[in-house]
């Protein structure tokens, strides 16, 4: 299985996955790669995800959509907290407005969410990994196997590939 996720200079995200499935598959077996929400998902409100691994488990957990949804909810929580922390004057008017467009999740928060969904899948017995990017430009890997062929590049800093 191969996959790619990207965020472009307009802040738009996209995800794609392509595979041959599993050796010896029969009875028309389909894994998660072509299932939108399991192996592939993209939504400018949260993230783009592509997955690889034991497809049946990614389908059952809805891994790609789950990661995107949790990022979206965390963003909304953080934004509400940031707005609640703005000092107000005697009429209760906030001193300044926190625009959603100035806001985003940090890479460590995305990592925490991706790791937790992979861990949830592992509890069912699944193995594999995901790649994630967000409209805010973060890039994340998360996997519970000895290796994942992977690579990352960004305008903020270089390109790298890894296997183990």
């Amino acid at each position: 299985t191969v996959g790619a996720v990207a965020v472009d200079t307009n802040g738009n995200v996209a995800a794609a996955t392509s595979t041959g499935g599993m050796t010896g598959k029969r009875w028309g077996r389909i894994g998660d790669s072509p299932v939108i929400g399991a192996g592939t998902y993209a939504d400018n409100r949260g993230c783009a995800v592509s997955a690889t691994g034991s497809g049946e488990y990614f389908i059952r957990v809805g891994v790609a959509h789950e990661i995107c949804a949790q990022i979206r909810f965390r963003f909304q929580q953080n934004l509400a907290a940031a707005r609640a922390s703005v000092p107000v004057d005697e009429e209760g008017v906030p001193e300044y407005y926190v625009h959603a467009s100035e806001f985003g999740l940090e890479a460590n928060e995305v990592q925490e969410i991706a790791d937790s969904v992979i861990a949830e899948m592992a509890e069912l017995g699944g193995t594999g990994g995901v790649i994630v990017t967000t409209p805010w430009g973060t890039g994340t890997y998360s996997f519970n196997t000895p290796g994942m062929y992977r690579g990352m590049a960004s305008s903020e800093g270089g390109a790298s590939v890894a296997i183990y």
Partner: protein
Amino acid sequence: GRWTLVIHGGAGTIERDRITAEQDAAIRAALSHALETGSAILRGGGTSMDAIEATIRELEDDPNFNAGRGAVFTYDGTIEHDASIMDGTTRAAGAVTGTSHTRHPVTLARRVMTESPHVFLRGSGADEFSLAQRLEQVENSWFETDRRRRQLEEFLAGETAGLSAYDVDLKYG
């Protein structure tokens, strides 16, 4: 004006002692080249959709990865591809499963998204749509590699020895 591209070529029991130095170097080179292909599009202000499609087309052509050419075999000794793509701007999506003759399944998935009223097409119907879209067609044998055929033979030998991967106790679903 920030852009980011992340790719994968599969996860699994990738054991260091089973990958030769040549394979290691070839895989890293393939990942680096595909990464640069997509990065050049993003660096030039291109869209994330174009970047990921170009990146994956390259990986589909590389026999080191289980996609396109170099994909694994089915139980019946054929090769069937699955692919999907999704645009975060509109949440438009396209997907295909069980295709046999389209050289780049990711491009077929994108055409399903942009040129059909559907999200998901299957098997011979998807192949038919690919022909209608004039996408590049190849013989199914074009996707075959010796390494994957050996893996199928090992798998079927296990079946014969009663070590079926379809052992009912081995429950994926």
